[in-house]
């Protein structure tokens, strides 16, 4: 078979941005495999989901609608997806490379004896097979991988594809949504929403926004925190800021603090002394905002803004918020 499936990530039918990105990416893949884009819906709220995904070009949907599924973690999706793959043999299935998507994909793979690739940042097709690009060893290395045999199970990282609308009529097929007792073993007891200020730890964050002496006083770290929360980032601090007592040592980046290598590091009001650079120079992308055009930090940036941080950062935070509002 040549169809490209997308396991829809959704909450009671409200499909996520990454679901729309995957549908968009699946269109390009299906154009190569000669198949259709098929959305796989498991859970409740299909009516809502259908309306949302019709914009993103799914030709068909397999609908396993059930109220019961939401009370259990991952296993119902595993069982239903594995069953459908065995029955219909698609070219492959795209999953969101987020904890639940990866868990479902890898368990489906183990159950059906298939291969799986996680964390792909791009997927193309060559000789009918997927070519998945991903970064390894903390981002220092680019790897291209394929799977030896289909159906191909591929987890794609959020934002790897840009969601583009392409309205289509969704042909819908209702499929068996029943699950076995084994799929009811992990019970969802309670859903807890993030408490305010629950930022990722500096050591592991994909994005870090750090503040330095340029902030002038401790209260001004709120400017950094606002931007960090917009990007889901951790807040770091230079030694100067920590020594002045503006921010805790646990957040210090540098030779006497944490050595970090995030995907994105934004240094705000930090001149870039060697002691600081030692802690962050392996970051994949480095951005600096500083009013001193001669600051050494600008020698190592991908993008530098020479300007007043109190002007640039709040406006940037607002701009990002605005852009994130879209689909």
């Amino acid at each position: 078979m040549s169809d490209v499936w997308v396991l829809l990530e959704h909450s009671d039918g409200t499909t996520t941005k990454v679901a729309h990105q995957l549908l968009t990416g699946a269109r390009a893949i299906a154009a190569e495999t000669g198949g259709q884009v098929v959305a796989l819906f498991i859970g409740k709220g299909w009516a809502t989901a259908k309306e949302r995904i019709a914009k993103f070009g799914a030709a068909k949907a397999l609908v396993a609608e059930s109220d019961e599924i939401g009370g259990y973690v991952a296993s119902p999706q595993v069982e239903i997806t594995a069953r459908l793959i065995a029955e219909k043999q698609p070219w492959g299935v795209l999953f969101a490379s987020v904890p639940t998507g990866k868990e479902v994909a890898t368990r489906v793979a183990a159950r059906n004896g298939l291969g799986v690739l996680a964390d792909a940042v791009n997927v193309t097709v060559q000789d009918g097979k997927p070519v998945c690009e991903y970064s390894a060893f903390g981002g220092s290395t680019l790897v291209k991988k394929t799977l030896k045999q289909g159906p191909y199970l591929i987890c794609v990282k959020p934002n790897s594809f840009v969601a583009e609308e392409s309205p289509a009529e969704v042909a819908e097929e209702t499929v068996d949504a029943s699950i076995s007792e084994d799929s009811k073993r992990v019970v969802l007891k309670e859903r807890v929403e993030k408490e305010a200020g629950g930022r990722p730890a500096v050591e592991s964050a994909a994005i870090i926004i750090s503040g330095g002496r340029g902030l002038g006083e401790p209260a001004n770290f709120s400017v950094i925190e606002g931007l960090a929360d917009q990007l889901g980032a951790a807040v770091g601090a230079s030694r100067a800021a920590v020594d002045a007592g503006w921010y805790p040592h646990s957040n210090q980046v540098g030779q006497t603090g944490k050595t970090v290598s995030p995907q994105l590091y934004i240094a705000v009001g930090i001149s870039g002394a060697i002691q600081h650079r030692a802690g962050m120079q392996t970051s994949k992308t480095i951005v600096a905002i500083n009013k001193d055009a001669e600051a050494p930090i600008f020698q190592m940036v991908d993008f530098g803004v020479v300007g007043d941080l109190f002007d640039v950062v709040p406006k940037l935070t607002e701009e990002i918020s605005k852009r994130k509002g879209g689909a």
Partner: protein
Amino acid sequence: MPLNIAVCVKRVPDTAAEKKLDESDKTLDRESVESILNPVDEMAVEEALKLKEANEGEVTIISMGPEAAQAQAIRKALSMGADKAVHLKDDILHGSDAQAVAYALSQVVKKGEYDLVLCGAESTDARTSLVPPALAENLNLPNLNFVKNVEVSDSSVTAHRETDKGHDIVECQRPAVIGVVWGANEPRYPSFKGIMAAKNKPVETLTADDAEIDSSKVGFAGAKSEVLEFGARPAERKKIIVDNSNGDAHVKLADFLQEQKFI
């Protein structure tokens, strides 16, 4: 209620080290880089030790890989306070992908009677997070993955599972496979006493045959994925500098961040 806990650990290249691909078989040349115990596995070990301290029991480290894996990963875990270790070591395992690793580990786990099998939910090298759920699937056990705050009661285990909006409180019966998330705890530093004691703790070495591993399912033969290309990602900086004298630098920076897929 003593708990018999297994913790699966691996070694990873030190994140600060240069990585090299073995050109002959496109696997990481692990001899060429400094290795450390996967930091997330350290958190799994810490979580296991805390469970042991609260409930009594025993912590067994399980690791698979060449000799150096023992020296680095197993010793570190034992010096933190684990009681013993099982080291699966066999040349036929070289080239195993995540699915094959999960299968091989499951064969070792089956040889024990564990109440809980803990793993780091990811490793700092491959970061695929595939092993814990695949391990659970191979063992036909429930899986709590990407969790912290692991607690046990009579026959069940509960934990906080990370979600993008916060966390879910999830529960299942034991035995279960638990994937411990990054940041679950602050792993303890091995004490001098712990380091000395680790030297005398039992480490059992198993071959693939000992673990009754089907050789067609592991190594290069069993790998379902294949590396096509592998190369260093150039760390050249773009050095785009904009001046905010027009007051629109934030728009240009937002454009840049969007291009780089950070927004």
